[in-house]
């Protein structure tokens, strides 16, 4: 171990005198401790706060650890020399060399105060007593007294009964804070603004012109009644679940591809999306919803509608490449579980649990032990799909399939009997067969066939079995194929440079079609090879020639030709043709020795089998295919991406991983509740052998336990965030030290309590919030208020917003009349999916009508880019996303102006206007404004629009409308 003074050499030599003086003087000025220093009470917190963040056993910065007696008093290190502070490096580095200078330690953060250094000096001089077995740990910035971990306030300064009639309690809370800041709320917004605001907010679509007109009329008669009716109508709309479900899918990082290198698309994850939409539309109590997310397969076993909830666990990305290196494989598994733990903490608890993976959380009171307790909780979860069906459906399926399976087995047995008989006969003739096979087997490094000179325009290699599997004739590779002319100066006429043209079905990569093409076998170079997808390879010569030899290989000049990379032909024919239609065999591998025992057996069979046997086998195969078809036609039990559960993975024992490394197991851990909340609610610890199902269920129950203040607070804050654009806490996934502080702590608790009182149902909460004056006020800017609260966090106005990516696309479809309202089922794609070991997602240039569904039904793949969606800040869903960015870029402008989709929508809108408003431009323009903005144009707008329509047609007007700011901004 290095001494501190090796790292800070100056500390020893200089400054000593001053320190001495300081130390002496301080006895006078800081006569703090008449008695001995109480290390545990007085000094431990100082060291833990200012030293341990770097000098703990996990980080050991500069090889210095100050956690326990052993390292602190290491005789080689001179950190602390008992009885002599001035000979102790620890003291020297935390005191300044010259008065007023910054001491060399701590490197970051505040230096120790004079009182603290004096305490340290006194403790060392007194002999540096260390309580037996004490280990120092870095203190997190926030402890259990942090605001977010306190029980919910249940009584408030304003009791609800004292509210004036029709006064919304939310406004009472807000007014109080506004008043303190010298602000007041804006007047109410007008009817058109309100219907636009509320409709987008609750269903994510524009109001129709009819809805807007009706509302404006009703609002004139009875503003309150009309508005309440509007909110109730919207809350009852099935589109509500599509809009708010999308919010939740962001939070639970729902994506429909696996992520990482292969990033294979997942085609059966959509049932979870439908489950979320359905649950929100039903107003399912959210505590139940959360329990289903973590343990739906436990509480709803055999009920697919509930089991599907637990797809939450596997809704995130994971690395499925596989790894022979055991340490790396363990790390990947740890990363996968970390993803589940982090998402759970962020989504339900507003806790950033992932930060406690390598060490105790530096900011929040979350220990590494807490983290690994959850690791043990989720250890049985694996990504993947499985059948989700009721026992009744499973039974019915079994009943239907059983007779067919039996039929299939019978047919297979009959086939096998014939094959066995053939082979039994063949074995007896083996010696005869072997006599026919005189030449060496086909050689991957180079195989030669010579034959009497023959005139040919074409030559082809026909494979009857490749050399790794005698019954498969495709999949062979050729790095080169040569055809030589007869005579004294032979020429390779197959060579491309000599005019040869190669053909043959090849394995294909969609975005790099020639990667394995036949051209690679006549390029005169080895290294890259043709991989056949059929059973032949043909070369057409530039002109008819006389040839007498071919030469071909798959591992020309390779050091390890036996590797499976070089699969070659084993049994084959060489044929020539003058017209490409009539073929003549000129050579074959029939007289070569078989390349393997398996190939030998296939040749025996081929030589021995009778015509009758072949026919019988063919008949049986036909029958078998028929049975297979019937099996395939039976309705399949649905297989869904809900993850698999593997009790063996969950066996344990589990340890915490020092520094986050599975290669450094530390103390044993068991599934347990988080210590963070141990002071305010129930706790649990489960014995090591507890079933993994039970572990998840207990965690779920703990998360939604009424004593747990975090869950309802976090959820209430999310609702506020989506309604007002910013939460009462502006970091909805993080209620810890690094997160924001609540602007209205009392209001937050009030809402959390209300949420619980409402049985964890969201719809009454929406109603409560949206009926407030705060929600209904105008978004008008006030200069004076803006100076005090520019971001409107105190809600002196309603904060305006831009529409989300999904809302923008859905608005295009709705306004143009093209929106396909079908709900649920498999999603649509705005990209082209390609797979060649790994997946590639290419954004499409044109979208067909099959994509005209709401954007929530888009099959969002990870690490894919879809112009319209990505550019308007749709997240990648690699993480839980608590809030969307709102960016403005030139790329958005290019896409909205020029993507084929916008043009399609502009044309559809033009057609719609024509049919609705006849061939009368002013009426068409008015109708366009009503559809897009829910208002009539001003005279100036009408004139400008008319000019566009008259000169350039309706499409020019419609395209401008779709690109306009007013369409995608809400007041």
């Amino acid at each position, binding site marked *: 171990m290095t001494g501190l003074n090796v790292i800070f050499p100056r500390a020893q030599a200089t400054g000593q005198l001053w320190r001495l003086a300081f130390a002496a003087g301080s006895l006078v000025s800081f006569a703090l401790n008449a008695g001995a220093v109480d290390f545990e009470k007085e000094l431990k917190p100082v060291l833990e706060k200012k030293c341990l963040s770097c000098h703990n056993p996990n980080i050991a910065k500069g090889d210095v650890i100050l956690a326990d007696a052993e390292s602190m008093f290491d005789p080689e290190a001179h950190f602390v020399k008992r009885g002599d502070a001035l000979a102790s490096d620890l003291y020297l580095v935390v005191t300044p060399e010259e008065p007023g200078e910054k001491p060399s330690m701590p490197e970051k953060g505040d230096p120790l105060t004079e009182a603290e250094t004096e305490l340290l000096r006194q403790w060392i001089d007194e002999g540096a007593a260390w309580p037996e077995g004490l280990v120092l740990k870095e203190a997190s910035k926030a402890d259990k007294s942090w605001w977010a971990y306190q029980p919910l306030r249940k009584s408030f300064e304003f009791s609800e009964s004292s509210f004036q009639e029709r006064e919304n309690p939310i406004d009472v809370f807000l007014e109080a804070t506004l008043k303190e800041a010298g602000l007041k709320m804006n007047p109410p917004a007008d009817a058109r603004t309100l219907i636009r605001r509320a409709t987008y907010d609750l269903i994510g679509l524009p109001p129709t012109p009819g809805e807007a007109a009706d509302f404006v009329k009703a609002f004139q008669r009875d503003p309150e009644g009309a508005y309440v009716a509007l909110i109730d109508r919207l809350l009852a709309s099935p589109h509500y679940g599509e809009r708010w479900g999308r919010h939740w899918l962001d939070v639970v990082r729902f994506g429909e591809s696996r992520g990482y*290198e292969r990033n294979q698309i997942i085609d059966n994850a959509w049932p979870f999306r439908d489950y979320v939409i359905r649950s929100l539309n039903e107003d399912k109590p959210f505590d139940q919803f959360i329990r289903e997310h973590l343990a739906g397969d436990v509480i709803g076993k055999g009920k697919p509608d509930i089991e599907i909830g637990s797809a939450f666990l596997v809704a995130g990305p994971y690395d499925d490449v596989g790894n022979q290196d055991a340490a790396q494989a363990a790390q990947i598994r740890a990363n996968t579980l970390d993803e589940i733990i982090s998402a759970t903490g962020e989504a339900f608890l507003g806790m950033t649990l992932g930060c406690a993976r390598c060490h105790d959380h530096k900011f929040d009171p979350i220990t590494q032990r807490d983290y690994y307790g959850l690791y043990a909780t989720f250890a049985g979860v694996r990504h993947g799909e499985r059948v989700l069906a009721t026992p009744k459906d499973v039974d019915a399926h079994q009943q239907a399939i059983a007779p067919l399976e039996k039929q299939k087995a019978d047919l297979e047995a009959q086939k096998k009997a014939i094959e066995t008989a053939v082979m039994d006969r063949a074995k007896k003739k083996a010696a005869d067969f072997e006599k026919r096979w005189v030449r060496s087997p086909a050689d991957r490094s180079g195989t030669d066939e010579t034959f009497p000179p023959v005139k040919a325009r074409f030559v082809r290699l026909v494979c009857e079995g490749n050399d790794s599997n005698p019954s498969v004739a495709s999949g062979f590779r050729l790095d080169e194929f040569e055809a030589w002319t007869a005579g004294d100066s032979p020429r390779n006429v197959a060579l491309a440079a000599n005019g040869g043209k190669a053909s043959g079905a090849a394995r294909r990569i969609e975005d790099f079609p020639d990667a394995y093409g036949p051209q690679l076998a006549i390029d005169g170079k080895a290294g890259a090879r043709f991989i056949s997808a059929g059973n032949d390879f043909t070369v057409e010569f530039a002109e008819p020639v006389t040839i007498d030899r071919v030469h071909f290989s798959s591992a020309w000049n*390779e050091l390890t030709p036996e590797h499976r990379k070089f699969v070659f032909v084993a049994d084959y024919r060489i044929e020539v043709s003058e017209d490409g239609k009539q073929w003549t065999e000129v050579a074959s591998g029939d007289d070569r020795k078989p390349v393997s025992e398996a190939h030998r057996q296939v040749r025996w069979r081929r030589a021995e089998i009778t015509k009758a046997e072949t026919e019988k086998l063919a008949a049986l195969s036909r029958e078998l295919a028929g049975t297979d078809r019937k099996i395939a036609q039976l309705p399949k039990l649905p297989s869904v991406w809900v993850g698999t559960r593997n009790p063996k993975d969950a066996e344990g024992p589990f340890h915490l991983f020092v520094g986050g490394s599975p290669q450094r197991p530390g103390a044993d851990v068991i599934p347990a509740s988080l210590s963070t909340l141990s002071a305010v609610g129930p706790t649990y610890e489960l014995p090591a052998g507890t079933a993994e199902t039970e572990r998840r269920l207990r965690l779920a129950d703990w998360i939604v336990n009424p004593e747990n203040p975090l869950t309802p607070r976090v959820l209430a804050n999310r609702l506020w965030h989506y309604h007002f654009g910013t939460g009462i806490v502006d970091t909805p996934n993080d209620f810890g030290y690094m997160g*924001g*502080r609540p602007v209205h702590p009392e209001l937050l608790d009030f809402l959390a309590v209300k949420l619980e009182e409402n049985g964890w149902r969201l719809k009454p909460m929406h109603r409560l919030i949206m009926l407030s004056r705060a929600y209904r006020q105008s978004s008008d800017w006030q200069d004076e208020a803006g100076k005090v609260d*520019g971001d409107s*966090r105190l809600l002196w106005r309603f904060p305006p917003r831009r529409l989300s990516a999904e809302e923008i696309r859905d608005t295009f479809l709705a306004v143009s009349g093209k929106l396909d309202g079908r709900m649920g089922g498999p999603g649509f794609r705005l990209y082209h999916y390609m797979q060649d070991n790994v997946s*590639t997602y290419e954004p499409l240039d044109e979208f067909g009508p099959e994509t005209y569904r709401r954007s929530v039904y888009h099959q969002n793949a990870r690490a894919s880019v879809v112009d319209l969606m990505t550019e308007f800040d749709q997240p990648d869903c690699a993480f839980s996303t608590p809030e969307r960015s709102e960016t403005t870029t*030139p790329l958005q402008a290019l896409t909205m102006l020029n993507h084929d989709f916008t043009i399609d929508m502009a044309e559809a809108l033009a057609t719609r206007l024509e049919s609705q408003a006849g061939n009368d431009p002013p009426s068409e323009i008015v109708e366009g404004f009503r559809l897009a903005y829910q208002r009539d144009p001003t005279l100036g707008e009408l004139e400008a629009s008319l000019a566009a329509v008259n000169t350039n047609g309706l499409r020019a007007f419609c395209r401008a409308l779709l690109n306009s700011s007013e369409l995608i901004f809400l007041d």
Partner: protein
Amino acid sequence: MNPDLPYASRRRFLGHVSTGLMGVGLTQLLNRELSAAVSGPTIATWHPGSGKPHFPAKAKRVLQIFCPGAASHMDLWEHKPMLEKMDGKPLPGEENLVSFQGKNGPLMRSPWPFKPAGESGKQFTTMLPHMAAHVDDIAFFHGMTSKTNTHGPGCVFVNTGHPTEGFPSAGAWTSYALGSLTDNLPTYIAIPDIRGEPPNGKANWSNGFLPAKHQAITMAAHQPIRNLRPPREITSAEEKGTRHLLDFLNEKHAAEHPQESELRARISAYELAARMQLSAPDVSDFKAEPEHIHRLYGTDSPNDLKAAYARNCLLARRLLERGVRYVNLYCASRASGVDGLLNWDAHKTLKADYDRHAPVFDQPTAALLTDLKQRGMMEDTLVLWTTEFGRMPTRQEGTAGRDHNPDGFTLWMMGAGVKGGTSYGATDDFGRRAEQNPTTVWEYYSTVLHLLGLDFERLSFYHNGLDRRLTDVHGKVIRRVLA
């Protein structure tokens, strides 16, 4: 906004400002990021996206060349004479090594001889004869280490500083920190190879949790920027009519909401888009390039792959020249069904694979470096060469190729502020593990950010509980490679 107020927003990108926005440049308007997105003591003094670094910068722009597939350090960059001596013998101490694809066989020498290059006389592979000319200008990091031995996480790690998905790439961080140098082109461009995307695809140039405007725009000589033109016939008269009406509507709407800076920014975005429509086709039009430049790069090569990459190299220069801040240029793509075919992942047939890849890479890359030098652009352009990890000194059992090796490999940099002819760090005698000055990806990027005038510890962005950084919670500037 007053940061003392408890309700001061932590992060709003285009906040509602109460001052007029007249006279603010287009780019500044779009790049305007409120300082609240940055935590710590920097709030008052530095704004991301303002175009200003933390301290005076050596480099204004970055060219990052990426050779995906784990390009072999001991065959390309770091000479290992011991492999020649012990070719065919077991790797001492790791005779039974099991790595990514399985068991390893004996040590394998590089199939290409090395010979001294440049004035420094550094031993350099004969596989890259053109690149040898630049050896004296390169600072090699021979002691790199990675956290992962898998391509996808490896690529993402070397591009984002995190082996897991979802983090912003170095180019996105640069865009966020420094903003744009031009109104006419995107700030950050990724140029994928004609053979396809690298492992983990678009995650390599993702904005992660940074706002979407910091994602790379993809383009290549074979692939223009998307949506530059309407896909079908729209007459210029109609286009003008639409734009005119749109301007009218948007101006009117913005005027009615004078305090909403987004609305003004959106109008600017349409103006910038119009400029891009003019500039972007020009940048990919190589007709103006003289014949000798085409020959220098090899755009006329009969090797289609080489010609395609050469055109992308030329495109990279033209983008950098016109003010693109960060160009991420790929040479090769992903792991196909046959490894080593589409990228540098030579598991089974190292010699054959690199005999195909090296000629594609060598001349065009060397030409790009030469061209940047001769135009004086190397003074303020930082060039990075990266790959996801290295390869084993052994042959993979039963093959003539090498398996993945995250424990030692080479990256390099050259150009603005870099001390050429430097070799920092080294692997052991065999190339198995970083031994001298092992260097993390975080240290490499600390150095990159330093050259861009950015303090890697101050450049952060709050996300889900942490002020996240390109260098995670690590990093250190490697001063030995600084000029």
